[in-house]
């Protein structure tokens, strides 16, 4: 099970959608969890939250996720939220869904100006180990409600600022899943650089009696091609550095070595008769 956690409807789609789609394609069951209500992206607050709620659902579908969740904390104000309450809810979901792998905004992403990103990353980081049996038996009432501890062994931290890339230790080839990533971004109509920008450009050119063959003959094609051609540059450039068509980069934190197993192995190898 994987959970891709984002503060905003366009975080996962922009920065790690290819890898999420790849893992789902390789057998993972995926869940998308959005923490904010994205109220700052829309003509009115009401229209913004409704459109972004739809976008989150549609992006989850495009990625092949089983379900999408939203916590609806106020956009841009998550540094005013009680971190411990966000953590409580994440622990609940991680246990309920028996999550093994999380994707989250890197809580150490240098120079990220958005407080929602940092709060989301920190909450996921602490919830990941506290949801496990070694996490200090947090929220025992959740266990009484029938939930089980989970073991989150892998964390993929994604980040948006180039400065954050100094923490990268894993490059994922997403060439086979680039179309999933593009479709997830097209689903983001309420905010971000993707959405309906392709069809808008196509309509604008048509009004001037022109067309771009790249954008095809219908709105869906226009949106898809616009995103793939213009918005995937960063991921093409990342891929190029490693001889790949497209890539995403992460700070990856894997399973910690099992000390007890190491001790057992040593004992098996070195124990002598009394």
């Amino acid at each position, binding site marked *: 099970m994987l959970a891709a956690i984002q503060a905003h409807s366009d975080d996962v789609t922009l920065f790690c959608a290819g890898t999420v789609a790849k893992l789902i394609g390789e057998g993972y069951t995926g869940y998308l969890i959005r923490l904010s209500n994205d109220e700052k992206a829309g003509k009115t607050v009401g229209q913004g939250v409704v459109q972004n709620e739809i976008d989150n659902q549609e992006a989850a579908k495009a990625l092949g996720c089983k*379900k999408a*969740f939203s916590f609806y904390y106020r956009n841009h104000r998550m540094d005013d939220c*009680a*971190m*411990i*309450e966000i953590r*409580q*809810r994440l622990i*609940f*979901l991680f246990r*309920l869904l028996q999550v093994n792998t999380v994707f989250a905004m890197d809580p150490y992403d240098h120079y990220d100006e958005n407080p929602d990103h940092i709060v989301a990353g920190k909450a996921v980081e602490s919830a990941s180990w506290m949801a496990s049996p070694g996490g200090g038996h947090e*929220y*025992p*009432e*959740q266990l*009484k*409600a*029938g*939930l089980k501890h989970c073991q989150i062994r892998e964390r993929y931290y994604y980040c948006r600022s180039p400065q954050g890339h100094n923490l990268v230790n894993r490059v994922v080839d997403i060439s086979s899943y680039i179309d999933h990533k593009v479709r997830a971004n097209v689903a983001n109509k309420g905010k971000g650089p993707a959405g309906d920008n392709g069809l808008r450009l196509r309509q604008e050119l048509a009004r001037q009696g022109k067309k771009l063959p790249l954008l095809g003959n219908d709105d869906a094609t226009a949106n898809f091609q616009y995103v793939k051609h213009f918005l995937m540059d960063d991921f093409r450039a990342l891929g190029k550095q490693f001889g790949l068509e497209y890539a995403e980069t992460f700070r990856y934190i894997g399973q910690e070595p099992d000390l007890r197993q190491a001790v057992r192995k040593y004992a098996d190898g070195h124990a002598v008769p009394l």
Partner: protein
Amino acid sequence: MYRHGIPGFAAAAPAGNAAVLVVKDERGQPHRGKVFAAVHAHLDDVPYYASGLCAKLMSEGYTGYIVRTSNDEKYGGRTTAQNILSNEEDHFRMAAALGFKDVFDFYYQNHDMNGISYIDLRGRLILIFRMLKVNTVLTFNPWGPGEDDPDHWVTGRAVEEASWMAGMPNDFHEHLEAGIQPHTVTERYYFCAQPGQPFNRVVDIGTHIEKKIDAIVECKSQGNGNRGSIVRAQLARQGKRLAMLGNDDRAADRAYARQFLLDNDREYGKQHKLQYAERFYYVDHRKPSKSKADEYIETNAVRI
């Protein structure tokens, strides 16, 4: 923390103009199938303020659960860590003595609960109220004047809010994913914990006083539950004894509690010709099965 000897308790006024209802034992098991949660901050809160009512409700069919919100680290006379342990152990024994089905301990920092994330506390209560399908809560009156212990009013307020929010599907909607459905808590009994706090129910606990004593004597880390045996030991060292304290520690603790720790209950009872009573501010949010609008529609709707 329950504090003894605060003057003026018995003189506390009933709530506004509300009539005070004297509640006696009910026959049989009229509350079978119903669930209550007693939510207190400290080991000795429920034993002193409401253990008679807890025993009464359970004897009348309720299933009872107890939630302690603080870690009680400030009481016990030992190190902070040892205090947490001894209060924890006392709390389990006290809950068993009263017959609670399960115990939830949240361990928020004692005396400092006005500094915790309040919404975290509320979220945890909502999960418990939903999963246990709690009908009735017993807790501190969040609006009670004179409440100078922050753990008390924070706990009361969180319970008050969680009681209705537990019924709202959009609060903590992830609970529904786990099959835990929204559930509104409809009845509340607020403790009468300080002089001057309002009450509209006086509950006759005469037949449940032994259970109340059972609960109080388990409050050894705080609440004077072991005072009788301490006095007995002190006297023995001086070569003396008090006949009323009996021949063993358990008898001494019970006798001491009966003689010296139930003055409020006796005083509350006396005013209504009862031996022992507890006071509560009771709030009933149960809805009639049919609304006024439903009744009107049923009576007045005609064929088109």
